[in-house]
């Protein structure tokens, strides 16, 4: 196929700058790049190394949340890591490009697929950003529903982290126990939204559906049981000799380095920095609820474990308070210009049908401007930077994803350590590649 034929296939291709390599010599160029890459990864380096002890190793996917898409190239001297280079890009799905070509509502299901361990937080983050841009007020009941579901998402995410973390250090049964609890959380999502995993429940101006009494009963019952589980697990792990030997003093990062390298979320708080968006810039119902942010000073894997365990305990407290305070009322703004009308309304009202159609087709008309809004997702600060040109589509939507920021500190954590600790260090950062690669 020649270059000419290609340009006929892709419309818009002619406007792009002409590539440096022609179609014919590109294969040659590509082969050269591959040779360099293979060389870098597999050749034993002989400089200043008479015993040939330095080797380069590709660290494969070992953490269930990095399945197949995180590659860490390690340079080893025996079992000591000399340098580490994380490589991303295998899962790149062009989320931000898609966002520019979708209305704000249309993009919402895509955010489920970012951090797929806690889809509700991502939905909420996008909706809050759009509401800030459009200055839209949300009814208090919807605010509380979002808060409760976000905290459930946090517990669910930390549970997965706990199970896989303990599995990384060599124990498997914990993984099964945490998944049992996650199953209950998914049941609750199922009762509220009709979907277990990718739920897309938030709407601009509120949420899609209200709590059922069945769901609230299920949640109160589950909370009672779950409250007993956490101390049981902590009794087993907190002073476990093997667990502490694997975790303590591994992957240490100081307070100043953590700030400088852009760590975020529980990883940053384990290094002694008191940064939590829930306290710093209160959103949703957090200013009305009483909770504390766990801070630890050590900055090692064990501190990151303790932070997440205490966060789960705090989340339970938050859930109990929020359920008690849950206000009555509507769950979506009654303004057809900014929010979808109810389905039942559409069946008998022409106006509602028109609004529903316009909202689906044109999107919500947003004012011209730019904003940044962040929430505290389970992994850290999840922010959306929106540029609006006054239409129903975002001109630019940038996802500031916590996993991406956390992974950047990985070389700092593992360099100088042992190769067996690399597994634990990656696990302790809790990366989700759907978010890091976007």
């Amino acid at each position, binding site marked *: *196929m020649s270059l000419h034929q*290609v340009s006929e*296939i*892709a*419309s*818009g*291709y002619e*406007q*792009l*700058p002409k*590539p*440096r*390599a022609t*179609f014919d010599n*590109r*294969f040659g*160029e*590509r*082969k050269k*790049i591959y040779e360099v*890459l293979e060389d870098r990864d597999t050749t034993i380096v002989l400089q200043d190394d008479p015993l040939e002890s330095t080797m380069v190793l590709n660290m494969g996917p070992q953490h269930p949340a990095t399945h197949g898409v995180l590659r860490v190239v390690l340079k080893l001297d025996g079992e000591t890591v000399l340098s580490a280079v994380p490589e*991303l*890009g295998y899962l*790149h799905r*062009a989320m*931000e*490009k*898609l966002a*520019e*070509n979708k209305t704000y509502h249309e993009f919402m299901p895509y955010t489920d697929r970012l951090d797929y361990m806690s889809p509700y937080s991502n939905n909420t983050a996008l909706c809050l950003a759009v509401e*800030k*841009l459009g*200055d839209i007020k949300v009814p208090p009941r919807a605010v509380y529903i979002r808060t409760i579901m976000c905290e459930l998402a946090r517990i669910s995410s930390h549970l997965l982290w706990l199970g896989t973390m303990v599995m990384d250090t060599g124990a498997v049964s914990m993984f099964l126990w945490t998944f049992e609890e996650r199953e209950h959380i998914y049941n609750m999502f199922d009762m509220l939204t009709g979907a277990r995993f990718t739920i897309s429940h938030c709407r601009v101006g509120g949420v899609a559906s209200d709590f059922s009494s069945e769901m609230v009963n299920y949640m109160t019952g589950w909370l009672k049981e779950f409250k007993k589980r956490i101390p049981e697990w902590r009794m087993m792990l907190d002073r476990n000799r093997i667990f502490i030997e694997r975790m303590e003093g591994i992957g240490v990062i100081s307070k100043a380095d953590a*700030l*400088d*390298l*852009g760590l975020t979320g529980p990883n940053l708080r384990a290094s002694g*920095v*008191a*940064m939590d968006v829930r306290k*710093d*810039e209160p959103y949703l119902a957090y200013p009305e609820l009483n909770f504390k942010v766990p801070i630890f000073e050590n900055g090692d894997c064990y501190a990151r474990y303790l932070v997440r365990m205490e966060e789960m305990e705090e989340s339970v407290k938050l859930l109990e308070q929020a359920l008690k305070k849950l206000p009555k009322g509507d769950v979506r703004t009654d303004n057809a210009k900014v929010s979808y009308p109810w389905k039942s309304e559409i069946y008998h009202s022409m106006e509602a049908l028109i609004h529903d159609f316009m909202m689906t087709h044109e999107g919500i008309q947003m004012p011209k*401007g*730019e*904003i*940044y809004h*962040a929430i505290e997702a389970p992994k850290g*600060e999840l*922010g959306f*930077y929106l*540029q609006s040109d006054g239409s129903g589509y975002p*001109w*630019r939507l*940038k996802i*500031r994803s916590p996993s*991406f*920021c956390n992974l*950047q500190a990985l070389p700092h954590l593992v360099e100088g350590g042992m190769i067996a600790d690399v597994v634990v260090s990656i696990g302790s950062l809790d990366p989700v590649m759907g978010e890091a*690669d*976007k």
Partner: protein
Amino acid sequence: MSISFDEFSAHFSNEIREKTTFRGETTFLINPLEIERVCIFLKSKLGFTYLTDICGADRFTPEDRFEVVYNLFNPESKFRLRLKVWVNEENPVVQTVTSVWQSANWYERETYDMYGVIFKGHPDLRRMYMTEDFEYFPLRKEYPLVGVAGSIPLPEIDPKANNREAAERYNRGETV
């Protein structure tokens, strides 16, 4: 939760082109080659020790086509600030801020990967997501949503080979 920018504005009166406020968020437009100096001042004097994000945007104008957006955060006073620089399409060069915040390294690489903005003095300006030989910048507005056919070629195989293994051997430079 507010910081007085009088001193800052007076100190950098030549570098600041514009100041805008929208929904309580302040944005400064800075000259692209002075951004490092401005950032050093903001970090050391005004306490913006945490760099939240760097991202690019395509304004799709004949002049000053691309912009680079810096979201900063002050952990002490919990204040957010945004800086912006505009660069030309022909010569999209911005001074790097990796010497100010180490975390700028990956954010700048991502911006380069998506928009082709070159960060002067960056220690490791490689592609972040796309392959090394991908020659386009996918978040530019003229890049088609469906992609460009043939922009990432499949590995070539030997047309004469009669089985898959032999065909792949050709790909490694061996003759059948």
